[in-house]
């Protein structure tokens, strides 16, 4: 769970997840364009690529190659233990 919290600790990475929630399966180019035009975040492509690597190693983002293109998808599975630990248990009592 440590990697997940570390990945979520950065506001740009949280925004990337917001945008993937808006539309799943985006290229690096689309994500960069959304960050700058919708959120005013002027991170370089290289920086966004590194953010994606962190999210990917935490399991929150999966990248899939489709022919010549590479798309990024959100994976919410690593968030489930958090819900289980603090929300679902509490809801039962």
């Amino acid at each position, binding site marked *: 769970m440590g990697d997940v919290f570390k990945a979520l600790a950065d506001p740009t990475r949280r925004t990337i997840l917001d945008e993937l929630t808006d539309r799943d399966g985006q*290229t690096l*180019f*689309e994500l960069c364009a959304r960050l700058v*035009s*919708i959120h005013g975040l002027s991170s370089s492509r290289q920086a966004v690529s590194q953010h994606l690597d962190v999210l990917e190693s935490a399991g929150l983002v999966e990248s899939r*190659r489709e022919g*010549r*293109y590479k798309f990024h998808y959100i994976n919410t599975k690593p968030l489930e233990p958090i819900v289980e630990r603090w929300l679902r248990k509490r809801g039962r009592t």
Partner: protein
Amino acid sequence: MRINLASVLVDDQEKALRFYTDVLGFVKKHDIPMGADRWLTVVSPEDPEGTELLLEPSGHPAAKPFKDALVADGIPWTMFAVSDVQAEYERMRGLGVRFTQEPTDMGTVITAVFDDTCGNLIQIGQMKS
């Protein structure tokens, strides 16, 4: 000084000419034999005296890795203006064109990105009024 010519690197000039005219709707302007290749340009029917687009052969060894790397990250190499991105998206999708980015509101502009079948991604954009 003004811009009278822009280029795209295409892997097959004849295929590119078909795509840029039949699918995108540009018209051929110059077609001059240049050895194995052609000086091949198209223009917009809305602006036949305007900027020409040169369909430049991408035979140089540096071209393919360059194009492949851009396409992998979804980066379009040139952009065309349209009055309605959503309508163009639907029209072109109907003709079998592959989009890597669906029409998206980017604030002042709506954009979409498609594969030109010649090794490039191209962006279309519509300024919001």
